[in-house]
């Protein structure tokens, strides 16, 4: 029972981070219809900035700079590259982000070199927390708290703020939104910036002892890939689905790693994704597009 509770809390904490990644991924997809394969690299680039600045300016400033850098990078990618290829199909743009991903990943991994990979979670990493009878990693608990705050803030903004209204209007019907005076480019750019910032926040928890046991490296990019099944399980068009998908992925991974096999955990995530797709082809909350003939 004790182990179960421990695994449950750890899995939820991990799920919270996947939820952040998947949420950013879905926001970008909703605003631009582009599957952003560079999401893992955005996280990695943000993490790299944190790792470089940390010894100079301290963790807090470095973390803020890293998040800002990831957001800025996403913004630059959207403005300079994707906005120029507006007439290309969604699929071409998805492949374009694969190219960006290859470039970013190669450069960051090259810069990291073969030295010991840096850990990014200084204030909370490797400081186990005892809650009653169970001991859990502090990173997971902090991650959960941070995500709950961020996700609540996002949904409030999405529901009530002018930005959220514009965003929803555009994903509903691009032409009609444009005719109502919504600036498409501004919505798109802000969606990418928000997605980038969320990836920058997520990496602060991904590259910790508690979370993955490894520092910032190519492996971090691999872990961030789990945001894809999370987003797909939830349905690519639904922010709420992305959050749910994130928790499903986190819990599946933690549970199977504990009770089945460590290596099987990663496969299990994809098996769950396949199961969901077989039952509901558009994901749990995905929009179903039907064509009548």
């Amino acid at each position: 029972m004790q182990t179960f509770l421990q695994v449950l809390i750890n899995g939820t904490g991990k799920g919270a981070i996947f939820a952040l990644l998947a949420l950013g991924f879905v926001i970008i997809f909703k605003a631009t219809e582009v599957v952003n394969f560079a999401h893992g690299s955005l996280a990695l680039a943000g993490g790299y900035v944190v790792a470089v600045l940390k010894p100079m300016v301290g963790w807090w400033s470095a973390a803020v700079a890293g998040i800002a850098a990831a957001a800025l990078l996403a913004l630059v990618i959207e403005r300079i590259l994707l906005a120029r290829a507006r007439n290309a199909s969604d699929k071409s743009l998805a492949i374009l982000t694969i190219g960006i991903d290859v470039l970013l990943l190669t450069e960051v991994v090259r810069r990291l070199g073969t030295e010991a990979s840096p850990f990014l979670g200084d204030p909370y990493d490797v400081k186990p927390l005892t809650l009653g009878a169970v001991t859990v990693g502090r990173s997971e608990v902090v991650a959960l708290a941070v995500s709950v705050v961020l996700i609540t803030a996002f949904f409030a903004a999405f529901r009530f703020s002018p930005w959220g209204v514009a965003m929803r209007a555009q994903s509903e019907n691009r032409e009609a939104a444009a005719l109502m005076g919504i600036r498409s480019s501004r919505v798109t750019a802000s969606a990418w910036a928000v997605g980038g910032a969320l990836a920058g926040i997520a990496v602060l928890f991904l590259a910790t002892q508690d979370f993955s046991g490894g520092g910032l490296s190519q492996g971090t990019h691999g872990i961030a890939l789990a945001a894809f099944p999370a987003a797909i399980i939830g349905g690519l068009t639904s922010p709420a689905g992305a959050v749910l998908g994130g928790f499903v992925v986190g819990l599946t991974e933690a549970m199977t790693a504990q009770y089945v096999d460590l290596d099987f955990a990663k496969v299990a995530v994809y098996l769950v994704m396949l199961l969901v797709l077989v039952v509901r082809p558009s994901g749990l909350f995905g929009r179903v597009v039907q064509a009548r003939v």
Partner: protein
Amino acid sequence: MSDSNRTAGDVVRGGGRWWGIGRVAGAALLIVVLLALPLYLPGEWLKVGTWMMTGAVGALGLTLLTGQAGQLSLAHAFFLLVGAVSYAVLSGPVGDPTYIGFGLPPIVGLLGAVLISGLAGAAVAPVGRALPVLAGSTSSGRLPQPFSIFGLSVDVSRQLSSLSVFGVPLGRDERSWYLYLLLTAIAYLLAQGAVRGRPGRAWRAVRDNETAATVLGVSVVRVKAGVFAISSAYAGLAGVMTAWWIGIMKPDESEVAGTYGVTVSIAFLAMIVVGGLGSLPGAVLGAAVVFGLPVALPLLTQNASSDVGSGTAFSPIVITNFTFGAMIVLIILFEPSGLAGLCRRLLGPARARP
């Protein structure tokens, strides 16, 4: 994407007579050069060539799926693994207690591996159909593991035994060059036939407008599943060629990096984009760039002093990744029809002459 439609029409119309003669002469010259190359090139360069051909077979399969039928898939490397594992099991040695092998002749193993990959593709296709984007990032899971769960452990690195097809012992670079050339040629011609014929028209109809295709009497579901199976069979063949080329069947280091990881799927995607989506010659060109560069660069720079130091050096793999990453970005932005489109544009004036 639409240029692939044009090639079919060009053949029918024939173009100018000189263009036709030039085309035949060019093809003949290419065949002669390819057949004569092993007589002049040293062994390590032949290995580069066979590796390019391995990539070309895989890329041909993916360009049918993504370029012709419009389905994006990241599962290509998974089917490479299916092909390689099937071959290792079908043609593996009998009687070794640590190895599940049926000891079939390699040619049977090869055909079996291609068939099994195709069937696996057909089985996965319903999910791919449901979600054309990301048709199966299923592959990103660490796949050697499920195989060990089902009792087909591929965990131990083993020498693939009895590598001879048609009595040709593989491992001899010159002979394997000819074998790979034959396999690539067969794969290319079959793909060309499909693209120019009825299946190709059905794929493009589904790609361009599913509703219109349905109205025309094309069964969208069957076409999508069919092209997925064909693409998987190509990947299976490429997998067998990979296993031959490396010489052993071993598990990947992680789910992202390795011979059958998601990075390889991305490399295949890069090939077909660099070459031009849907174009068969483009897929071959793209394979030459993406698979050729990382193995050719060390040969070119082996005399230069390489400074490894802290590991931040520009190693061949880093240079290759930069090259194809940049090529993907530039090609999508400026030349959506890829290298094939570029060549066609350069040859354009020659073709227009009567």
